[in-house]
């Protein structure tokens, strides 16, 4: 419904010389900017008629001061036409497709008629895309013509040399077309033919792409700045305009005095250069214009383009009020829904609260407290819309006058809802709503469990906080964006919020078979979990009362909850349980809310662990239940970890002498195999693998020997010395941190270091370091590290390790920038898609993209790893207590 003040469409065109003159208030004729008194010279680039910009200055054109003067354009009459760089490509297209003599489209009369008819039909059908393709087709066809079908004139190839020079390739030689000639040709193109080529002769005649008049933007577009020294510094555009005017005047003079052609040509080129760099100072193929200081000037294009340009920087991206940013730090005592806000920030951020009979007393108190004392208020808005700053008024008196209809901008306080965000905001869970907890100190505090969705850690990360100001915005935030609503990720429906690191090792230790708790332990643990209910019966009575960790977990599970799953520690073959009767305790079974056997680890309570205990809790009992479980039970895990004194040190990685010798033996054996290979290669007995050279084959075999095979053999040799009583193993096996490879690397051997998947071979000529003989192919000379971190590396090994480590670092740096850009393009391409009520995916214009969202119409967030229904779980849920 196009109504008043409603934009239905926008059309872009090119200014014609007439239009430029018509909208101009004055011709700019002199390159002198100010006179000796520092006043702007009339007819100069800072002519006063171009708009008022100084305080209290009155515009001589519109009579407004600088606040309401819109600014006015001037113009420069160019002595000779000049190509507009931004249109060079279009000009090239017109020149190629039309006759150089008669200016008509190089397509025969009948065909022209046919295309015109076709375009008219497409227009009626509203098929914009097809129209574009027809234009493209016509262009290609016309450009291929070597003889004009209308006048029969021979046509030559026209070459565009970037950025703005055109050449005609005749038989007798290549000839340059100057802008005047170009313009003459463009003028001859009939309107009808412009339309056939996809142009609009009313809004953009081709010859307007060659400038004869240059518009001079208002002063407000290019304000000069007054430096502290009192010296005026002009804007880059003004500088460029001065250059243009100077060159233009010189050119006109040369023309008037009838100077030789070569000199005119030279000045003309200079004018072209200045006009080009005025528009775009990064046009390919020309030198960038610089200040005297060597600083690169900013052209009009540079103002608009790129991340900090007008569009991305100022229009799509704006700065906002009611936001805060500071370093984040962890606080496991907060709920996952909460965020700790420093009191200093809470005193600055405000929420507008409307005065009602029910809150007037409270708000009076806040007004009296004022901006300094928390909880207070910073502003009061009167019913007439006036805003009163509480810093400068008698707050007691104002508080008295407070009545319904007033709005108090009060400090942020506990229970307020805010949006919390960490960049890069790659998915929707990078911004979630949190409930405020005002805390001392200067960092934002957040529960550790919400680190994964933000991808946050505490090595100096900063996060942003925004305070919604409207009732509707707050309601939406609370209902749609609250952290607990995002425990499941929209990526695949698994929990992205869940236990990590300490939580997991703590859960394992607590639920471990060998853990027996005394009465005091139980009281302490249930205390931190905020348990209110009957004290559980001890599991063991003789020789004393003892409780198991599993019992404590059971207290918090819903009474009809069934769950059966192999624990993470069961993923290692040695600890796998096939059925419930198993000594490893690696099968987790919960029947009717009773935690019977198994241990909790990453597979049950971890983040990004689909089909886990918390996953089913969220799905079957709601986000709220799951959140409470995370807020309370997870705290027990941490507390138990602390009580237990879970720690890891150097000694946990030490191997007995026998094992060390065994490892050395294995290493020596593999090394000898490598030497044998090298010998074989030197004797020429090595058979090349298919598709590889002899050298490549040798490298492949050596890498094969030294990395995979060696590490496997070493890992096999040392595993007997590590078991689940070792904290390092607990962490690795439960999924808390690290993996068995890390363990081997620490305890025994780092192995072969690689760069780009190859052994290290760069450095000096034919050798990696001066410590080796040239051509040495042995393991040590090519980055093999025969020691683990416990033993320590020798200097050469340390160097190789650093080299390989550096590669990983640069790789991640490169990857993040690349995937960031990919993400940007992807989001830009997909942002307007939407799933309609009929399940189709469409563009805003109604074009269909998918006939059913994702072919199956399933919302991944509500699915089980993409599956709409996981039938096994449904069975388990209902009769799981019986099987």
């Amino acid at each position: 419904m196009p109504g008043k003040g409603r934009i239905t469409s926008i059309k872009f065109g090119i200014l014609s010389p007439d239009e430029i003159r018509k909208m101009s208030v004055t011709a700019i004729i002199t390159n002198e900017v100010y006179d000796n008194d520092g006043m702007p010279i009339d007819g100069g680039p800072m002519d006063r008629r171009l708009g008022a910009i100084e305080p209290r200055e009155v515009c001589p054109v519109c009579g407004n001061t600088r606040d309401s003067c819109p600014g006015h354009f001037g113009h420069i009459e160019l002595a000779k036409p000049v190509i507009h760089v931004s249109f060079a490509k279009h000009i090239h297209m017109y020149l190629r497709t039309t006759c150089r003599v008669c200016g008509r489209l190089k397509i025969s009369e009948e065909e022209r008629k046919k295309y015109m008819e076709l375009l008219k039909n497409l227009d009626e059908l509203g098929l914009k895309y097809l129209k574009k393709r027809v234009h493209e087709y016509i262009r290609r066809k016309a450009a291929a013509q070597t003889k004009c079908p209308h006048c029969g004139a021979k046509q030559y190839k026209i070459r565009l040399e970037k950025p703005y020079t055109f050449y005609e390739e005749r038989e007798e030689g290549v000839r340059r077309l100057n802008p005047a000639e170009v313009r003459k040709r463009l003028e001859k193109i009939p309107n009808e033919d412009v339309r056939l080529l996809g142009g609009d002769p009313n809004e953009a005649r081709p010859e307007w792409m060659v400038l004869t008049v240059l518009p001079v933007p208002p002063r407000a577009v290019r304000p000069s700045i007054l430096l502290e020294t009192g010296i005026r510094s002009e804007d880059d555009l003004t500088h460029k305009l001065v250059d243009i005017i100077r060159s233009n005047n010189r050119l006109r003079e040369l023309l008037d005095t009838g100077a030789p052609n070569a000199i005119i040509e030279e000045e003309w080129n200079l004018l072209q250069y200045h006009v080009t760099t005025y528009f775009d100072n990064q046009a390919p193929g020309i030198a960038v214009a610089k200040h005297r200081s060597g600083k690169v000037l900013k052209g009009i294009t540079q103002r608009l383009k790129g991340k900090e340009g007008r569009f991305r920087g100022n229009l799509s991206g704006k700065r906002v009020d009611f936001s805060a940013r500071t370093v984040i730090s962890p606080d496991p005592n907060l709920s996952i829904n909460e965020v700790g806000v420093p009191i200093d920030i809470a005193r600055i951020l405000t929420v507008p609260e409307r005065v009602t009979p029910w809150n007037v007393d409270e708000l009076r108190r806040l007004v009296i407290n004022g901006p300094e004392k928390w909880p207070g208020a910073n502003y009061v808005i009167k019913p007439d819309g006036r805003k009163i700053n509480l810093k400068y008024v008698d707050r007691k008196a104002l508080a008295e006058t407070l009545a319904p209809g007033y709005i108090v901008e009060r400090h942020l306080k506990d229970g307020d809802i805010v949006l919390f965000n960490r960049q890069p905001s790659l998915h929707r869970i990078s911004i979630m709503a949190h409930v405020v907890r005002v805390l001392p100190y200067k960092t934002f505090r957040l529960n550790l469990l919400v680190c994964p969705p933000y991808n946050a850690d505490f090595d100096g990360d900063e996060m942003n906080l925004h305070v919604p100001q409207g009732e509707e915005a707050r309601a939406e935030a609370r209902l749609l964006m609250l952290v607990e609503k995002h425990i499941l990720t929209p990526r695949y429906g698994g929990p992205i919020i869940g236990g990590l690191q300490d939580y997991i090792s703590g859960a394992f230790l607590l639920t471990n078979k060998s853990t027996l708790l005394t009465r005091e332990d139980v009281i302490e643990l249930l205390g931190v979990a905020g348990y209110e209910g009957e004290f559980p019966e001890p599991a063991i009575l003789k020789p004393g009362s003892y409780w198991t960790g599993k019992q404590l977990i059971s207290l918090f599970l819903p009474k009809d909850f069934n769950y059966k799953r192999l624990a993470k520690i069961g993923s290692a073959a040695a600890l796998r349980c096939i059925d419930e009767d198993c000594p490893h305790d690696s099968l987790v079974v919960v029947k009717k809310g009773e935690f019977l056997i198994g241990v909790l680890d990453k597979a049950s309570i971890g983040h990004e662990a689909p089909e886990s205990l918390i996953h089913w809790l969220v799905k079957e009992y709601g986000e709220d239940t799951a959140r409470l479980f995370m807020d309370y039970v997870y705290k027990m895990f941490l507390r138990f970890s602390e009580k237990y004194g879970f720690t890891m040190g150097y000694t946990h990685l030490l191997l007995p002498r026998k094992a060390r010798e065994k490892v050395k033996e294995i290493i020596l054996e593999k090394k000898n195999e490598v030497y044998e290979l090298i010998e074989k290669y030197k004797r020429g007995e090595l058979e090349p693998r298919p598709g590889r050279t002899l050298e490549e084959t040798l490298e492949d075999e050596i890498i094969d020997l030294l990395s995979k095979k060696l590490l496997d053999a070493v890992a096999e040799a040392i595993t007997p010395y590590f078991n689940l009583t070792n904290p390092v193993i607990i962490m690795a096996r439960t999924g808390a941190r690290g993996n068995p490879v890390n363990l081997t690397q620490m305890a025994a051997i780092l192995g072969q270091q690689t760069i780009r998947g190859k052994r290290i071979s760069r450095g000096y000529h034919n050798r990696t370091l001066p410590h080796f003989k040239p051509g040495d192919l042995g393991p040590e000379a090519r980055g093999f590290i025969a020691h683990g971190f416990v033993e320590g590396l020798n200097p050469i090994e340390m160097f190789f390790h650093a080299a390989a480590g550096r590669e990983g670092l640069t790789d991640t740096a490169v990857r993040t920038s690349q995937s960031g850009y990919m993400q940007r393009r992807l989001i830009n391409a997909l942002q307007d898609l939407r799933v309609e009520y009929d399940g189709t995916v469409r563009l805003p214009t109604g074009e269909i993209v998918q006939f059913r969202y994702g072919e199956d119409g399933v919302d991944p967030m509500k699915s089980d790893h993409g599956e709409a229904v996981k039938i096994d779980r449904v069975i388990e849920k209902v009769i799981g207590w019986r099987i």
Partner: protein
Amino acid sequence: MPQKTHHINILEHELVPKHEKLTPQEAVQLLKQLGIKPAQLPWITIDDPVVKALKAKPGDIIRIIRKSPTAGESIAYRYVVVDTLQPKKRGV
């Protein structure tokens, strides 16, 4: 070079999902159901081998029935259009 001696019907190839031309009645019904104009359907060029094999003409609508790992079977439609970007023997 040995010349092509026999034609195979690509519609019967196992990697080609089932394509069929809608009858005018079906087409009208589909458009009504989706509440759109034909041009708002995804397009398929007349030069597409499948369109050639079906002997469909510009303006026809083609139904594609695919096997889908998630949905079992998924149905899509294509609107046959002339691709103007590829110059052919007899103009457009």
